[in-house]
């Protein structure tokens, strides 16, 4: 019998304790996986939306940290920005979370400058795009159409205004698939924010370099007090919701690590206490201390590995379940990657080894005579 099968056998002899330990580790790991993938997914889906549009820089208020940057009058800034070198186009955007009808959960409503490049990346699946900047119509993301049970020709109500659904589109960004898209002018009218935008999107021309983008950033900071030009990644990372989601994920990792290590520590300590005579026999048979230590650490690592594998599976299912709840659908896109799962598994094994070291050392330090006398 090799050492690994001996360790496995030891765990099997105490099924209740082993399964409780595995469950505790699995729960902690599941929480880590679910929260982290959702936090990253939330950040990535927003960045993906900005990247898909072809936006190179975003001009926003410097103080804005909320989910939606605070609105400002965009016209004067737009003219100034359009004259910077290598700026191909500047487009205003106004977005809000609004309920469609009386009882439905809020959904993203994007108002995009009519005829701007922002619309170019979308694939129209059915219907048509708005014919002019003031047409009282909406196009729905494919997921939004499904969630709202709306198709071409149906009507939706936004803040008391009735709009006809004239198109259904698909985007490479989940947040856009789950959104209602209207022209900027219509959005300003619906939300009573005449001439205002949340952000101005800048598209640089093809010859623009990073130095050109930096120049625009610098010029905005020098000439437009209270505003900043930032990349989509910077905008998303400044978002309070993203910050909170990430902070929660970090705290969960910390708590799960501590709890996991303590659970393994406790389990292995109790196990060694119960198996003192057994360890004494092994020592009397000539087992070196290092081998006894190795056996105990193997046991704790096995517990943690199994807990980690189950936790990753449960965490993925939990995140997928959350993605499909009515409130969150179309807003988050949990990200699962093999490197992340391997890292979590590594964390789990680390917990097992870390929690098992002290009990293993205790076991190895026992003298055979004392151990054999133990009742």
């Amino acid at each position, binding site marked *: 019998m090799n050492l690994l099968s001996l360790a496995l056998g030891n765990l099997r002899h105490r099924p209740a304790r082993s399964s409780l330990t595995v469950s505790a580790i699995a729960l902690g790991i599941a929480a880590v996986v679910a929260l982290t993938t959702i936090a990253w997914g939330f950040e990535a889906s927003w960045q993906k939306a900005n990247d898909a549009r072809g936006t190179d820089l975003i001009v926003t*208020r410097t*103080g*804005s*940290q*909320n989910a939606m*940057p*605070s*609105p*400002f*009058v965009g016209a004067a800034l737009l003219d100034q920005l359009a004259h910077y070198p290598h700026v191909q186009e500047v487009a205003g955007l106004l977005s*809000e*979370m*609004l*309920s469609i009808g*009386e*009882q439905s959960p*809020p959904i993203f409503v994007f108002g995009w400058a009519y005829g701007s490049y922002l619309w170019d990346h979308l694939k129209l699946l059915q219907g048509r795009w708005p014919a002019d900047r003031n047409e009282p119509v909406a196009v729905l993301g494919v997921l939004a159409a499904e969630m709202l049970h709306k198709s071409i020709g149906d009507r939706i*109500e936004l*803040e*008391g205004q009735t709009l006809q659904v004239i198109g259904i589109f698909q985007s490479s960004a989940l947040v856009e698939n789950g959104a209602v898209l209207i022209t900027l002018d219509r959005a300003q009218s619906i*939300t*009573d*924010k*005449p*001439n*205002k935008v949340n952000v101005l999107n800048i598209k640089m021309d093809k010859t623009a370099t990073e130095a050109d983008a930096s120049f625009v950033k610098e010029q905005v900071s020098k000439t437009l007090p209270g505003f900043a030009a930032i990349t989509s990644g910077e905008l998303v990372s400044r978002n*309070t919701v993203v910050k909170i989601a990430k902070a929660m994920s970090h705290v969960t990792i910390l708590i799960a690590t501590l709890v996991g290590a303590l659970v393994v520590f406790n389990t292995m300590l109790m196990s060694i206490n119960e198996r003192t005579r057994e360890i004494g026999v092994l020592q009397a048979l000539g087992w070196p201390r290092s081998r006894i230590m190795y056996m105990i650490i193997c046991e704790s690592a096995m517990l943690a590995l199994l807990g980690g594998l189950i936790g990753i599976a449960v965490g993925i299912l939990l995140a997928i379940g959350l993605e499909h709840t009515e409130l969150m659908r179309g807003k988050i896109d949990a990200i699962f990657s093999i490197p992340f799962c391997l890292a979590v598994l590594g964390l789990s094994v680390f917990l097992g080894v870390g929690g098992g070291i002290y009990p293993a050392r205790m076991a190895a330090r026992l003298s055979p005579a004392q151990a054999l006398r133990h009742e």
Partner: protein
Amino acid sequence: MNRQVAPLLVIALLAGCGQSWATDSRETPPGLLEAVQQARYSDGFEVRLAITTVDAQKVRSPPIKIAVIGQASAERQRFLVRGISPEAVRNHYLVTAKNAAGPINAFEYGPDDEGHPISVDPFAGLFKTDFVIWDLFGTWWDWPRQTAEGLGEVNGRRCLWVRSRPAALLQIKEVVSCVDKEFALALSTKVYDSQNRLRRTIRVEKLIRKNSNAGLMAKKITIADERGAYSEIDVYGGDEQYQVESETFGVLERLLGKSN
């Protein structure tokens, strides 16, 4: 300079125009009442609210959505309330104003009768909810008797209870507010009538940081009446720097011009 402002409900809870404050032995901390006054001043703001009424049997009504545009200074406050949904309130308007020492004037008109507004009671609930126009003005901060009543806690936040009483007997006899000293924000406001009955309790249930990052504002408020029914008010949208146009309060100004 356009000042950062607190949305309507914060203003409602914090409003005050008084220039002099008579105090007794339990004086309010220096600067607190001035801070409360300053917090509500605004060159223009807009908030959109969803009001859900829950009756004494806990039956919830469908939400009523309204938009409120306001301006407030030491000299004058004025508000425009627009019904958004459902259909019954859509494009029904209420315009109301109050000068520093004057009474509250309030008028209501529907989508088709802009020329024929009717005068309304500022103590009545708006669109059959517990949302009362009189509360918008926070008139009690203007009353001469303001006393500190000790520290309290509302939803886990420490605050100072302040009792406000008018000089003469009014329809409302007393208002007791618990003010968060750090943010000059009333977290709870109890309104008592001339018979000393508690008419309603306004509580800030949820706070969010202002876009300007200059403080906190109410995100969710409950207004409970004496029968156990209450209204939940959710601030779901708005603009802290709303541009008030000359026509925004055009109807109000014409009405006030006529009445003068």
